[in-house]
């Protein structure tokens, strides 16, 4: 176990980073989308901190996973909800942990099935090594150096906290 990072402080820093990046790219009215489940919790906070006008969108990427034929589909898929027209908009995609990159690939595919956005940027609470796809975050709250058998998990939705578990087997 490492020392518990201060999530609130991290979220504020992420909000500031996002504000700067958006300003630098000249994006005034972005649409934020969180990925179920942890990504939605993080997005909800960032959405409030940034005071965005558009309602928050949520994605459940279960139908877009590339490991379906191995693990099947979970019956409790939360419906994706994008309460705005994706077409031509700037999207901020939010997730809790960026690891292999496969979840983000699935989320991008799903977003594009709703329409063609002008741009997509990625914000994550935790960035760790182990990428299997050419995907990187535009804004990352924390960098973690973890072993392959270690898992970082966000608990929520209130009092967000990170725990690190290792599969000692």
């Amino acid at each position, binding site marked *: 176990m490492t020392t518990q990072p201060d999530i609130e402080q991290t979220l504020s820093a992420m909000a500031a980073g996002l504000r700067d990046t958006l300003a630098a790219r000249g994006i005034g009215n972005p649409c934020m989308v969180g*990925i179920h489940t942890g*990504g939605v919790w993080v997005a909800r906070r960032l959405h409030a901190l940034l005071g965005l006008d558009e309602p928050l969108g949520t994605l459940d990427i279960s*139908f877009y996973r590339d490991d379906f034929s191995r*693990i*099947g*589909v979970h*019956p409790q898929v939360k419906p994706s909800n994008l309460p705005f027209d994706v077409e031509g908009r700037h999207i901020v995609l939010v997730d809790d942990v960026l690891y*292999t990159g496969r979840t983000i690939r699935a989320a991008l595919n799903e977003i594009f*099935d709703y329409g063609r956005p002008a741009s997509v940027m990625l914000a994550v609470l935790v960035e760790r090594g182990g990428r299997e796809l050419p995907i990187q975050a535009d804004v990352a709250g924390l960098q973690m150096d973890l072993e392959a058998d270690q898992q970082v998990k966000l608990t929520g939705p209130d009092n967000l906290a990170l725990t690190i578990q290792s599969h000692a087997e």
Partner: protein
Amino acid sequence: MPNNIQLDSNGNLRHFLTVEGLKRQTLTEILDLAESFITVDAQSVKKVPLLRGKTIANLFFEASTRTRTTFELAAKRLSADVLNINIQTSATTKGESLLDMLHNLEAMHCDMFVVRHADSGAAHFIARHVAPHVSVVNAGDGRHAHPTQGMLDMFTIRRHKGPDFGRLRVAIVGDIMHSRVARSQIHALNILGVGELRAIAPKTLVPPEAEALGVHVFHDMARGLKDVDVVIMLRLQRERMQGALIPSGSEFFQLYGLSADTLALAKPDAIVMHPGPINRGIEIDSAVADGGQSVILEQVSNGIAVRMAVMSMCLGRAPEAAGEGS
């Protein structure tokens, strides 16, 4: 003989042949999953890549454009490749040629057969003889079962009346005897714990010992429809008008047809369902079929989501403990 060949050793759906014998939890999973597939309709690309690379063969030994189309759409929205095979059956389609054809399709690496056949038990027969990697979905076999239709009706009821079937009084009206749809609905409603289930029909169209299926039989529309929340009308096949089952379409409609007047006997917020295609003026009045209480068209679009759910459950494996959100 294995008691329920539609389940794998983990109790997960491998084939979908009949609703009978399934657990309430399995039915609820189908309905929940279908609920999430409804949102796919809102996408501009009405497709998810879940079954990409899978091949689904629609084997229709009995013609039905409507059912075949909804299965085809469901498969395509899951990104599967679809093969439509219509087999004109003479009465003598023998087992040998049927099995030969199945094995040929297996050799072409089909992953799922969606089967409709005029003989009860055809889907079970095929499921017993397919290769282990192939799933079979019953799209209607004889008078036996039409489980996806039964489930889409449950889905429609749940969307309108909420998840507690225990509060509901449901009436199924018409040709129960020859209806695979009715049998699937009856099993599904009982498994989901329906409050009361009624079958309303002339005695000639109620199968013997129907009460053993878990229905209360009524021969009188006024008594049968009293206080029901859901009215399910069944299609009366034209050929039933011969063979001394009913004297005529008009007398049948007089006694068992659904008109605005008879519908008034049910609860004011009762919904009206029909598996289609409708014989207007035989089992249901146009004004009722197109009226405010009718959910008949919704049933059709719900059918796609429910079939997507069944297909993806049969072709996916057990959702064990989900891995890290990578």
